[in-house]
């Protein structure tokens, strides 16, 4: 299938036509009219977004999300690559499970789905999972994480960091010292004290970050810190980078925009792990993302069925969906505040995550010969988040009712149009050749 994107706006504001053929950008120029025409109407064309932190729930919790529905949500959000976290049922700790998730992603065909493997068998933190088998499987896993749980045993963490060096793997740590967070419900601070909810102190995150930075330095391995949420954590990563330690860090869209004050009405839609922090933390995270201390945005898209949120705070599940709002939230937090340019947004949401994970066909600048993984964004549009129109199977968005800037119009995956005018193009209808 051939396409021409007419009147696409490049990051340098040039208006061009982009010809797509055989999965790559065949030509960029003026007055091109090959194949199916998609009129961008001067919307911005950028490389498709890449998420290194997605919970797709399949296998095991298909009531909250499947690889297919999560892929649709990703395409709607302008993502062309997502990374499925390992905390499924069964856990993605064997070649069999990661190959299954990879295959389901291929079958859905809306987004490249790269499985993340568990670090420890069953996420139990006791012994290493079959890291090599997952790396050598068809899924070619390179990122390993027990996300949802912390690899808290320092010796096991050291071994994991060392072991994955043979295939240039990376350990993505959910930094949460379990002993400091028993029964934790929200950020520990002024609000938790008032609400009588058990606190999740910043130090529980920072203590693990500090430890793992030093371990990564000691064994010379790659460490990725998932969802940084505290000002102190940003300082620690900044320190590590100044020492030349091979650490990368991630922040979620919701931690860039929301604070723990929102918990005051006990609405579990704001319950998330790690928890929403304070205004001061939000400002430090924004600064860290702008100056590159934080390398990437990761959605931590975490779908939960209605009944897991329609209850008292303490019984509710942790997590928020985020694929469909990620871009707009980052624009609101970083671009509307003039902390970051669109070029930097593309770096943090596409180029850098693809490079960290080694997703060769993603995160390439829009140029002749690059893989046609693209998102086309109406940067001047505004829209209101409506939980009922989400493509995700779960509706637990904390942004419902909020007016958002920037809207994804079209998404191309490996040369195929998978999102057209904001609507998913089903493979059956000939979006693919």
């Amino acid at each position, binding site marked *: 299938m051939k396409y021409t994107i007419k009147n696409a706006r490049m990051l340098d504001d040039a208006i061009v036509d982009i010809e797509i053929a055989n999965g790559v950008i065949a030509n960029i120029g003026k007055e091109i009219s090959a194949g199916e025409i998609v009129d961008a109407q001067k919307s911005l064309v950028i490389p498709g977004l890449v998420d290194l932190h997605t919970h797709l729930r399949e296998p095991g919790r298909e009531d909250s999300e499947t690889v297919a529905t999560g892929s649709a949500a990703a395409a709607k959000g302008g993502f062309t690559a997502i990374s499925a976290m390992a905390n499924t049922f069964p856990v993605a700790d064997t070649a069999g499970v990661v190959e299954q998730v990879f295959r389901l992603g291929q079958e859905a065909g809306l987004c490249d789905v790269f499985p993340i493997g568990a670090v420890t068998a069953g996420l139990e933190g006791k012994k290493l999972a079959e890291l090599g088998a997952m790396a050598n499987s068809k899924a070619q896993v390179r990122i390993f994480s027990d996300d949802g749980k912390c690899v808290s045993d320092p010796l096991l963490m050291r071994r994991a960091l060392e072991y994955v060096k043979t295939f240039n793997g990376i350990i993505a740590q959910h930094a949460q010292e379990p002993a400091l967070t028993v029964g934790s*419900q929200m950020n*520990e*601070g*002024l*609000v*938790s*004290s*008032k*609400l*009588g*909810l*058990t*606190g999740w*102190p910043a130090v529980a995150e920072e203590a693990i970050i500090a430890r793992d930075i030093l371990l990564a330095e000691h064994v010379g391995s790659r460490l990725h810190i998932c969802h940084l949420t505290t000002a102190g954590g940003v300082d620690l990563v900044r320190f590590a980078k100044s020492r030349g330690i091979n650490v990368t860090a991630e922040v979620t869209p919701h931690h860039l925009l929301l604070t723990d004050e929102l918990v005051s*009405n*006990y*609405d579990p839609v704001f319950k998330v792990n790690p928890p929403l922090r304070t205004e001061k933390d939000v400002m430090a995270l924004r600064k860290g993302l702008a100056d590159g201390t934080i390398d990437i945005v990761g959605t931590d898209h975490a779908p939960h069925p209605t*009944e897991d949120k*329609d*209850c*008292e*705070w*303490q*019984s509710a599940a942790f997590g928020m969906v985020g694929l469909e709002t990620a871009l707009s939230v980052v624009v609101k937090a970083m671009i509307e505040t003039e902390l970051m340019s669109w070029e930097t947004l593309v770096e943090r949401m596409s180029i850098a995550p693809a490079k960290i994970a080694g997703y060769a066909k993603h995160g390439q600048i829009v140029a002749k010969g690059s893989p046609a993984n693209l998102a086309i964004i109406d940067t001047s549009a505004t829209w209101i988040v409506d939980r009922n129109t989400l493509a995700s199977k779960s509706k637990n968005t904390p942004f419902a009712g909020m007016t958002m800037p920037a809207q994804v119009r079209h998404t191309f995956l490996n040369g195929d149009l998978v999102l057209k005018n904001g609507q998913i193009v089903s493979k059956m209808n000939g979006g693919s050749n």
Partner: protein
Amino acid sequence: MEKHLLSINDLSASEAIQILNTASELSKISDGPMKKLPTLRGRTVVNLFFEDSTRTRISFESAAKRLSADVINFSAKGSSVSKGESLKDTAQTLQAMGADAVVIRHGASGAAQRLADSGWISASVINAGDGTHEHPTQALLDAYTIRSKFPDLKDNFNGLKVAIVGDILHSRVARSNVLLLSKLGAKITLVAPPTLIPVGVTDWDVDVSYDLDSAILNADVVMMLRIQSERMAASFFPSEREYSRGYGLDLARLNSLKDSTIVMHPGPMNRGLEISAESADSHKSVVLAQVSNGVLVRMAVLYQLLGGAALTGEVGA
């Protein structure tokens, strides 16, 4: 206070005083020959208790019955709740039963607010203790008890010195009392080992002391909180003996109090731990008055929330 009483924050100082005044009126009526008022006849009050608390349930039940309301006790124990029925399903059941007010006790902080905000139920919601958050009627009955012992206090508690002693971190009684008593103008000192003081206390309108002996010297009110032995297991303090030595109200400390000082405890007491038998039974102790005032104050809250017929008319009746 519009429709619900979920937190002391739902009340202005004058609304709180109005509840205390209503309770005073009710006490005059209750002292007379007519124990039962027809005010809430035909109205249904549900006691929805997800946590065991016979004391609090009986207090609310007596209050509702004295106002002639129909009372339904819905206890988590032995009901579908203990088999995992959700708060939502329970609420919808109560809605179908036509509850006018739901008195909820729940182990989860914020459960009362969730019930009120969720749209599951149209009844007034009264928080009878939610997790480690609040217990607003306890604070109101404590304020009522304080006012009855210090007759100079009328529309505010300006100048009153209150020491609240014990497990502040986990105490819903402490949170509600801090909010209410500071709203009324009292000066509050929290006394506890640092492990049992919330980190966010810097934001509260209180002083903090780790020294019980000096903190109670000038106090008008010493409010002792129940300490649970499970806190010791979690290393909030080393041993019961050490806690008792540092933060228990023993005879020596009782004797150091001013003549006019009163000793309060929300109950149930751990005699010999946070309070000695001598202190609990001394003439300074108002623990039994707290219990009897509880019924009056809860009558006043139900009366005001459910908009019962004017009291004055009934007094004359």
